[in-house]
């Protein structure tokens, strides 16, 4: 009798709150932020006011200490309204997670406490211009000088980098050591030598700010290091094992929106003298979308539930959820455009944005090809 899919009363109320906020505040403004490539800071502030920002900050640091199930509940609702906007709080959790995993109590209070006191963000800086999937090939250098580290290098595709209070930076003290030479360190944005270039012209998720960061001889105290020297790569992987679950949740939200819009349109639009919803060609598309949506949602919840219980099975499950949900959502968005016909191809209707936005869900926080490698390794590891 242990199997139970129900949400607690508080989780249901959280869902209702997130849904209402998404519907009333986020969805009506999504197209405008997208077109203007504008960071919706006022929405970040509102999200903070209602307590839905940085929800994983532990109680000792002044936060709510909530888990991935709660993050998934919020992610689906915000993803439904605007995946581009959802990436902002999602990427902040990505910056918080390495500190939850490897930070001391003192570091949690010092870095995460302020995130609960005002609308503010964290960020995670792993990718570089020349490395993405091969994360261990990073070239940002970190050299110890007395009680300080000196960091030099360039990070790329970093969400929230400039808006955040700090970036958790991954840098190497010896590139020859590959993943064993990596240090994870918190670098506050107000340190000397830190500069940002905003990346323009993104296909989708244009409300979410993305940056190149340049660290030019940036001095950071040793107390900012997370874990031991050489533990950085492990910390990055442990982080992504958890944080790709919210990517799946956002994808579920996008797919639900695609289905909502498609079903509504199919009942309104007429062809050959009747609503197009009467035709099997359309019905089959709706049914396929629903099948993908429901299976991705339940599996995403499952992955979040495993991660919250610290069950090692979550490593493979989170990879399956992320790859499956983002591909299912891309399919749903694509079919939504097809159902809308010409109207789906222009931005008077919200469906073309769904496709542009959700394409990124197949790429960031580990491409879906990397997810498949993780899944396969876990299959084979069990047999070796």
């Amino acid at each position, binding site marked *: 009798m242990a199997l139970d899919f129900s949400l607690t009363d508080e989780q249901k*109320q*959280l869902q209702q709150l997130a849904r209402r906020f998404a519907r009333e505040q986020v969805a009506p403004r999504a197209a405008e932020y997208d077109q203007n490539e504008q960071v919706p800071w006022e929405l970040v502030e509102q999200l903070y006011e209602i307590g839905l920002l940085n929800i994983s900050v532990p109680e000792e640091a002044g936060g*709510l200490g909530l888990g991935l199930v709660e993050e998934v509940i919020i992610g689906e609702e915000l993803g439904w309204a605007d995946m581009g906007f959802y990436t902002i709080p999602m990427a902040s959790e990505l910056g918080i997670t390495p500190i939850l995993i490897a930070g001391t109590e003192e570091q949690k209070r010092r870095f995460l406490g302020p995130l609960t006191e005002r609308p503010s963000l964290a960020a995670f800086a792993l990718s570089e211009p020349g490395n993405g999937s091969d994360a261990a090939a990073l070239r940002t250098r970190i050299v110890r000088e007395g009680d300080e580290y000196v960091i030099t290098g360039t990070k790329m595709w970093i969400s929230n980098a400039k808006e955040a209070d700090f970036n958790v930076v991954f840098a190497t003290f010896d590139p020859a050591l590959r993943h064993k030479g990596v240090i994870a360190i918190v670098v506050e944005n107000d340190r000397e030598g830190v500069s940002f270039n905003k990346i323009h012209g993104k296909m989708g998720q244009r409300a979410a700010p993305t940056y190149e960061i340049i660290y030019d001889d940036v001095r950071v105290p040793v107390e900012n290091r997370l874990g031991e020297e050489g533990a950085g790569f492990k910390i990055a992987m442990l982080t992504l094992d958890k944080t790709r679950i919210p990517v799946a949740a956002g994808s579920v939200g996008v797919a639900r929106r695609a289905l909502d819009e498609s079903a509504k349109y199919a009942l309104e639009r007429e062809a050959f003298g009747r609503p197009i919803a009467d035709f099997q060609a359309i019905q089959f598309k709706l049914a396929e979308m629903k099948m993908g949506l429901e299976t991705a949602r339940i599996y995403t919840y499952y992955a979040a539930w495993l991660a919250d219980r610290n069950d090692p099975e979550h490593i493979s499950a989170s990879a399956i959820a992320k790859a499956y949900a983002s591909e299912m959502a891309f399919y749903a968005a694509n079919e939504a455009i097809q159902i809308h016909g010409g109207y789906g191809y222009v931005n008077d209707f919200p469906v073309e944005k769904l496709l542009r936005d959700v394409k990124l869900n197949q790429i960031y926080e580990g491409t879906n090809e990397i997810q498949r490698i993780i899944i396969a390794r876990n299959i084979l590891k069990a047999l070796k």
Partner: protein
Amino acid sequence: MKYVAIIRQVPDGESKIKTDGGRVNLEGATLILDQMDEYAVEEIIRLKEANGGEAVVVAFGPERTEEAMRTALAMGADRGVLVTAEGYVDPVTQAGALAKVLAEEAPDVVFTGGQQADWDSQALGPAVAEALGWPSITWTTAFELGDGHAKATHDLDEGAEVVRVVLPAVFTTQQGLNEPRYPTLPGIMKAKKKEIKKIAAAELGVSGSKVEIVEQEIMELERKQKIIDGTKDPAAAAAELVKLLHEEAKVL
């Protein structure tokens, strides 16, 4: 000072409502705190924040009303009292039960929604005031608390009037009274620990309903989709369009 908001749980306006055998079937509908009552909850929380005292939510309805009450508590109200009764009960009978609760609570100010989104009666606020022998001010758009009295702006069909009223009194809300806040996630977590006292309507000597609903039907909006051929004689088509907009659609 004590401030009370009387609330109801109603179907979300976005929900699709069905009738089943001549009765509204709420199964599957999302049920929420009545939006007109949200103004009432917001107002009593503001009064408490500005003047101290206690903000209490009171409701009459089925057990499930507790969910809407938790929303009000998550917004910031202190505690709740729920009079439970299943099925439809008319506003005057409801007011009889609520008046007994209020007589015991002895608040200074009572707010409730100007109308109820479920069985739209607009009667609950005035009926509660009547049962208590307190004054009632309907469609309140502005409220100012004084010493033993209050000043309120009351909406009229074609204007407004400002009244001064001796407390305790019952006020019903109108859009514009305030901007209700969202509940917050910390508020939701705190609300779990706040007290909701439940009293069966029968314990207050109230049972049945003076009005019984025999049948309900939902208004159907039908699209006529009338298309006027404008290719042959555009001027005549335009005249026909204006005539239809004026006489049938009655929008001109």
